[in-house]
């Protein structure tokens, strides 16, 4: 299941593991050899991960083993309790929501959820929400506002589900409503792009005072494959489309679309999820603390300023 460009790292890791096991079982001292290989591993990781193409990052963002919303609520938050349903039509398993504690204080958490197995993926519709998912998210935003709890969203979706049922029940409407609802939160709101940030289905829960992104996540208006299919009329040009879309964490930091890149350990979050989540926890703690000083009106104004500034235009002076 490893990605092609990871192979050298994985092979080297395997050799180190073997050497360790051998040393342990035979009770010989191979610490010098191991240390050498570990240095080599670190160098190799830096080399490979320092030179990742955008398309390779997209693959990392989708890699199995990468922390999902349920991993985050379990390991970054405490006392998580999942709450279900949109009180209108259904419970959507593609979005997970609930209450939790973060550093002792209550927070509301909402995130896209992909499955870890094929069966779970089908159950969770590969993390592609129906309108009900966004209505559940909005209900959670209401709850955050009602109790004055910070709102944390975790983005990891290829996009909102593009199916007949979703269209019939107003996919566009509910995404628009969710953007609006989140923009109106009177509490601190932080959005984190965990893996895939696919279009409006991602943005629907992305209207934070701060928007964070994991180092190997992507976030854009369209997936590279769909973009290639439309602009190049060939989905196989996804690699080129990924380059053109400038959809990586560092690209987005430069464009001002995200505020902070959460570093992933060498090898990527999918290979070292716990370390990645500790980085995320630290970043969340810092950002939340920074927002705590702001009152409801200031938070609203701060969020409007943030998104109002988005875009690249040249404005002629009034004649």
């Amino acid at each position, binding site marked *: 299941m490893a990605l092609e460009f990871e192979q050298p790292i994985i092979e080297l890791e395997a050799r180190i593991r073997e050497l360790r096991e051998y040393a342990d079982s035979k009770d010989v001292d191979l610490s010098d050899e191991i240390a050498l290989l570990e240095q080599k591993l670190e160098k190799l990781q830096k080399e490979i991960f320092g030179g990742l193409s955008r398309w390779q990052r997209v693959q990392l963002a989708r890699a199995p083993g990468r922390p999902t919303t349920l991993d985050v609520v379990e390991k970054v938050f405490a006392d998580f309790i999942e709450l279900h349903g949109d009180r209108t039509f259904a419970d959507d398993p593609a979005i997970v929501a609930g209450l939790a504690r973060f550093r002792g204080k209550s927070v509301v958490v909402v995130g896209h959820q992909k499955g870890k197995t094929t069966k779970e993926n089908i159950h969770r519709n590969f993390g592609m929400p129906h309108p009900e998912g966004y209505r559940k998210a909005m209900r959670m935003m209401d709850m955050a506002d009602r109790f004055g709890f910070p709102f944390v969203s975790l983005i990891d979706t290829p996009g909102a589900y593009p199916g007949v049922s979703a269209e019939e029940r107003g996919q566009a409407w509910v995404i*628009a409503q969710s953007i609006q609802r989140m923009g109106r939160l009177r509490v601190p709101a932080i959005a984190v792009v965990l893996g895939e940030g696919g279009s409006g289905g991602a943005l629907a829960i992305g209207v934070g005072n701060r928007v964070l992104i994991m180092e190997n996540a992507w976030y854009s208006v369209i997936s590279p494959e769909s973009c290639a299919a439309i602009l190049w009329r060939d989905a196989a040009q996804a690699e080129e489309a990924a380059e053109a879309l400038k959809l990586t964490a560092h690209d987005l930091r430069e464009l001002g679309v995200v505020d902070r890149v959460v570093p992933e350990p060498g090898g990527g979050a999918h290979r070292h999820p716990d370390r990645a989540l500790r980085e995320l926890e630290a970043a969340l703690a810092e950002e939340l603390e920074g927002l705590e000083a702001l009152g409801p009106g200031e938070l609203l104004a701060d969020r409007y300023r943030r998104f109002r500034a988005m875009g690249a235009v040249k404005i002629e002076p009034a004649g």
Partner: protein
Amino acid sequence: MALDRLFRRRRTRGGGRDVPELWLKCPSCEAQVYKKDLEANFMVCPQCGHHFRMGVRERVQMLADEDTFSETTGRVHPQDPLRFSDTEPYSERLSRYQQKTGRPDAIYGGTCTIGGVPSLLLAMDYAFAGGSMGSVVGEEIARGAEQAAAEGRALVIVAASGGARMQEAALSLMQMAKTTMALDRLWEKRLPYVSIMSDPTTGGVTASFAALADVILAEPGALIGFAGPRVIKQTIRQDLPEGFQRSEFLLQHGMLDRVTPRSELKAVLAQILGLLHPEGVRNDGA
């Protein structure tokens, strides 16, 4: 993203865009319609009532009270922040559309009165890159909402768009949040916002400002939705139901307030604005 539709359409439509044609074939009833007759009838087929797409100037002329319109758009120009290039560099694409339409980007509008109600009227230009929303469209809509709020005007936006503009990638996506949040300036002042969805209104435009109006009107037969029909077909691997994603379907599914033929649009809009913004009419200011 329903930009895919734009490309498909352009290929299946007969005739180059630059050749002036005197006669048009109605895609609905297949009658040959004299173009001047069509224009005089607000681009509605006199035979069957099919609504053709409409130019933004004609749209504004149709909706604004006579001699009250004053353009506010046109000073915001697109950039190429990503130096995007697919089969053609984005910057060249932009120049081409700018030359063709005479406008910097896919939106046109200004201040006017509508049935006596002071308004800010914006129309998306499908002829410019399929009415796609990039930074300029987002900026003009945000400015429109802010100006309407500052000057006590109603906001009216005529949507005609394949969705967000891919060539500005994440920045286009952010326009969905920017335009949506700007609408709240109107809320603070209790000023109304009416959305008019014309053919097509899809993708990030539907999923942001277009769907969030106090009253949503749509023209008959317009394609309206989030995902484009082709994408949906690929997803479900089945033919789409008859009338799917057309105005009348959306009305039945509770998403629209009314489907209004173009011939009644001005009157209905004026009535709604008069009801939602009664002070505007009383003050009678433009």
